């Protein structure tokens, strides 16, 4: 589905990503983890071509991304970014309808069909009851679902998630991730998620990429990536890794430095 071929990227002098290569299979749920400044967000921005790498290239179904038009990318890759600030609040429905933008081209207004697609996306994410409410009156969890609905209205093949669970309580974290997992399993959507929460990444992702200083330190299944040795080496702090007793996936416990 997506081939990342030895890309390197820098904003100014220093390389933020160096010689990163990997392949994302169709229908995969891929997690990107790593410390602050390891290049997670930059990598996501490159994956939807907001930034283009100075070296290497990215192929989407074997077509180089830099040869694709903005709207072609928007039809295939949707992004749910960290909190966006809206200057003037639109209603929930208006926000979700914006997801149809890549398909409208020069048309000024959405059609009945676009409205149908938006409604289905809202039904799926259970936000239909408050479709008329201004977006700034919603809670953090509801707002996240609006952006997922907008992403679904784009009818994409890939959804990129940047720190999707930041600012959500555990109940909303699980609700949100179950929704994403459903999209992944039932609709075969490819999901790429950058997250700080390694326990969540371990539970939900098929495969993980662990970044360190802009390079891939380790790539593989959660069991291969989340080991005491890897995490301590990359994050530089002591952790305890065992298994989640229910799912059997690796689980991280933090250890304080000052002993009692």
């Amino acid at each position, binding site marked *: 589905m997506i081939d990342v071929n030895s890309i390197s990227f820098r904003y100014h002098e220093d390389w933020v990503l160096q010689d990163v290569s990997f392949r994302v299979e169709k229908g995969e749920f891929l997690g990107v983890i790593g410390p602050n400044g390891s290049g997670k967000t930059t990598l996501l*921005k490159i994956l*939807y071509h*907001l930034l283009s790498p100075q070296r290497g290239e990215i192929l989407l179904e074997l077509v180089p991304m830099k040869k694709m*038009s*903005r*709207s*072609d*990318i*928007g*039809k295939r890759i*949707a*992004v749910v*970014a960290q909190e*966006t*600030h*809206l*200057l*003037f*609040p*639109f*209603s929930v*429905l*208006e926000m979700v*309808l*914006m*997801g149809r*933008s*890549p398909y*409208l081209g*020069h048309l*000024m*207004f*959405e059609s009945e069909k676009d*409205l149908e697609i938006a*409604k289905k996306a809202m039904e799926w994410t259970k936000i239909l009851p408050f*479709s*008329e409410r*201004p977006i*700034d009156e919603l809670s953090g969890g509801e707002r996240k679902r609006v952006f997922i609905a907008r992403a679904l209205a*784009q009818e994409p093949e890939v959804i990129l998630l940047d720190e999707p669970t930041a600012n959500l309580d555990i109940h909303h974290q699980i609700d949100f991730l179950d929704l994403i997992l459903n999209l992944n399993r039932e609709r075969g959507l490819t999901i790429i998620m950058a997250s700080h929460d390694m326990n969540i990444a371990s539970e939900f992702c098929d495969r993980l990429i662990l970044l360190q200083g802009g390079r891939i330190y380790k790539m593989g299944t959660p069991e291969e990536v989340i080991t005491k040795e890897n995490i301590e080496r990359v994050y530089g702090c002591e952790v305890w890794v065992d298994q989640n007793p229910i799912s059997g996936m690796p689980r991280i416990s933090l250890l304080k430095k000052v002993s009692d």
Partner: protein
Amino acid sequence: MKIITSKKVLTISIFLSLLLILVILVSITMGSVKVPPLRSIRILFQSILGLKGAGSETERTIILSLRLPRAILAGFVGAGLSVAGATFQALLRNPLADPYILGVSSGAAVGAIIAILLGLSTFSLGLPLASFLGALLTIMVVFYFGRQDGKIHPNTLLLAGVIIGSFLSALIMFFISVSQKEELHTIIFWLMGDFSFSNARAILIIFPYVLLGILFLYLRSRHLNLILSGEENAVQLGVDVERLKLVSYLSASLVTAASVSVCGLIGFVGLIIPHSVRLIFGPDHRLLIPASALVGASFLIASDTFARTILAPSELPVGVITAAFGGPFFIYLLRTRKVIKTL
């Protein structure tokens, strides 16, 4: 489900156009020379139909060559400033932005003052052409400094605009301090915004810029919605953001330049009309742009009518009226409608 459709935009635009026509009709019946209202309107319609009949020669001149062109001019300026204000608010993602925030107005003022000091204002279009030139130069300089690596950065653009604007204000102060008494009056009226030195031919300068500018911005209105929640957001939805910023900056700046060059710095219209329209019709630019144009035109024609009649036979600068009426009305809207959270 409430969404913006072409039908809704058309219906509201037709309604607001009727309001605009009504305001124009009332405006041409009012003035220091009393022409009975019905006769004024008959003169107008007969001339549209190519007939001659009602009214004396003087009355026809007053209605057709003075009041009507002035109303049309005020309409173009009001529409242009309102749409430019709405665009700058979206482009700079700043609710306090108005058409003058990037220094275009100061550039126009320097051009106008130089024309006044050199005595060029006695030529029929000397003043507007000089101020348009000043505005154009400012647009280019601000654009040059507001870019990095070939991209427009809204915050850099804002800083460049504000700083160049302040520099030009210093020039304005300097010119004022060295000018003679007679010139001073003209300069100050120009700075406050005034239609009394404009003539019908100024319409020819302003209308292509305002009409084309508004049309260009309207065609981008769906994308302006997307940029409200950030450039990255718009990119994610398939918008060529650099092109959008370039086209909207240039269109809104040229519309502003053309507008101020014919009547000076009329304040407030470009700030409060877009906000008022947003409070009533919502933030969607597909409705906001045409509605702001029509409401802005009506508002400025009405304000100018007050400005030239309230102390007749002498005239107030129209900027005094727009601020005096616009401010309290906007506060009223803010209190009664839901508040803009970011203000």
